[in-house]
């Protein structure tokens, strides 16, 4: 074998080897990414409007949401997950604020950050009325804090 062809084949071989390693690493990352998430659905029903009272928001612990019902304005759904590090915030009627137990973030009743390390206001989810008369929440659709569903 001539020196030139040896070097050519050798280079081609090394390129092929490293490409194969690259593709294999991508396959490893893909393998580690689940194709199916066995997690609660992002889109779910929470019951009929009559199930919710006026006044302070109702906390749904499974779904980690607060359901607001206002006599004039209607329904709104806030995410109970703190935008800082994912702890569940609590609503306190005494000062009409959300408090996060982990790092002390405080949010106003409309989700704005009052103080603490939280980088963003609390998220608001789209809430609609399903055909069967139940309220339907879609966690994949965030809406402005002013969003309301009149029933």
């Amino acid at each position, binding site marked *: 074998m001539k020196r030139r062809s040896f070097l050519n084949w050798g280079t081609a071989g090394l390129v092929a080897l490293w490409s194969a390693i690259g593709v294999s690493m991508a396959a490893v990352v893909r393998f*580690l990414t689940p194709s199916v998430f*066995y*997690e609660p659905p992002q889109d779910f029903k929470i019951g009929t409007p009559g199930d919710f009272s006026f006044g302070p928001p109702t906390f749904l612990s499974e779904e980690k949401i607060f359901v607001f019902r206002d006599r004039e304005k209607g329904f709104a759904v806030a995410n109970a997950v703190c935008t800082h590090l*994912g*702890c569940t915030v609590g609503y306190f009627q005494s000062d009409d604020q959300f408090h996060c*137990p*982990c790092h002390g973030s405080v949010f106003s009743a409309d989700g704005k950050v009052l103080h603490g*390390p939280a*980088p963003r206001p609390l998220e608001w989810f789209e809430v609609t009325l399903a055909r069967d008369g139940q309220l339907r929440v879609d966690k994949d659709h965030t809406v402005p804090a002013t969003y309301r569903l009149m029933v």
Partner: protein
Amino acid sequence: MNPIRDVWQSIFRRDPLSTDKGKSEFVFLNVWLHIHPAKVKKENLKVKHTFYLGFITFFLFLILVTTGVALMFYYRPHPPQAYQDMKDLQFVVYMGSFLRNMHRWSAHGMVICVFLHMCRVFYTGSYKRPRQFNWVIGVVLFLLTLALSFTGYLLPWDQLAFWAITVGTNIGSYAPLVGARIRELLLGGHTVGESALLRFYVLHVAVLPALVTLLTMVHFWRVRKDGGLSRPVWKLKQEKAPQLVTIGAPEATAVLTAVPASKDKTYGLMEVVTGKPIFETISVEEEEDTVFSYPFAFFREGIALLVTVATVMAVSIFWQAPLEELANPAKTPNPAKAPWYFLGLQELVSHSALLGGVVVPGLIVMALLAIPYIDPNPSRRPADRKWAIRAFTLFVVINVVLIVIGTLFRGPGWALVPPWVHIVGAE
């Protein structure tokens, strides 16, 4: 014809231990012991030089592997069985709670001892040439120790575990571009759930211990190849003009090179090969400074092992490893705290998640890795490196202060509360 002697001699092919050759062969011909040199410098065995922290860390790792494998016989990595198995270990399994205590307290001890070992190596300047790369391996081993602790933290599947991992993995998701993706890969989902528990379990019992074992072997091997333990700083004299030693084969016409004489041991390739001689063995050790590893080094290491095991056992008899109620994703405990060694980090994160959780720790890790390469000072004498010592001490003090604040002074809602104040109605 003596069959017993034949069997013995087929296993141990060495001279009697009463002879110097036998003592050397005891180390040299034994696969488990030959990581030691046959002879060691007397002053390197002094407790006040190393405090045996590297050995203690290794022994704690051995305790962790042993007790960890024992715990695996009674543990299912799936919620909520994982938590039920913890209760079984605590109340039903014979010696279960003792083994779990040993595992938990050794894990804390290992984090402390790795850190103290790193401090010792820094203060004695032992990361300097030719040991730079072994420092880097050591820093990686420190990070792997933290990763092992963190993955193990989730396994009890109690409130403490669930929320510490929720907070900890959310810190990671602040990393630009890849953060959210890494969190998804680590958890196998978007929240801490059954796939997260399984993934942390596999990392904790297989992947990370294997990595630590491999790197520990490299770490030990490099200690030998970099010339053995560094000399105690009190043995270092004022820098003199280095004495040059000519190396090369005697009959070679040209001198190969001249290198500074070193008190460190270096090794040559003892092999018949073609080409110029490649000896670079310079050993100007004083014979009277060294002692045989058997029995002097092994005796001291044995004592370190006994003290380590006895201490862990004593602590495990008197103090129970904590176990809170079953993990409840709907109810965040107040305050929710990460493991203590991450509370400095959580303290930073409580001010800014991006800066405190990603930027500062990232810079710290990079600085630690780079220390041997950015420190231009060749001297190991403490008098010559005042600023390096001050800077590192500042780093250690800040770390300790932040961890103490996070552990003792943070109450409900992460408010500053002294530990002696009891808040009525706090969960």
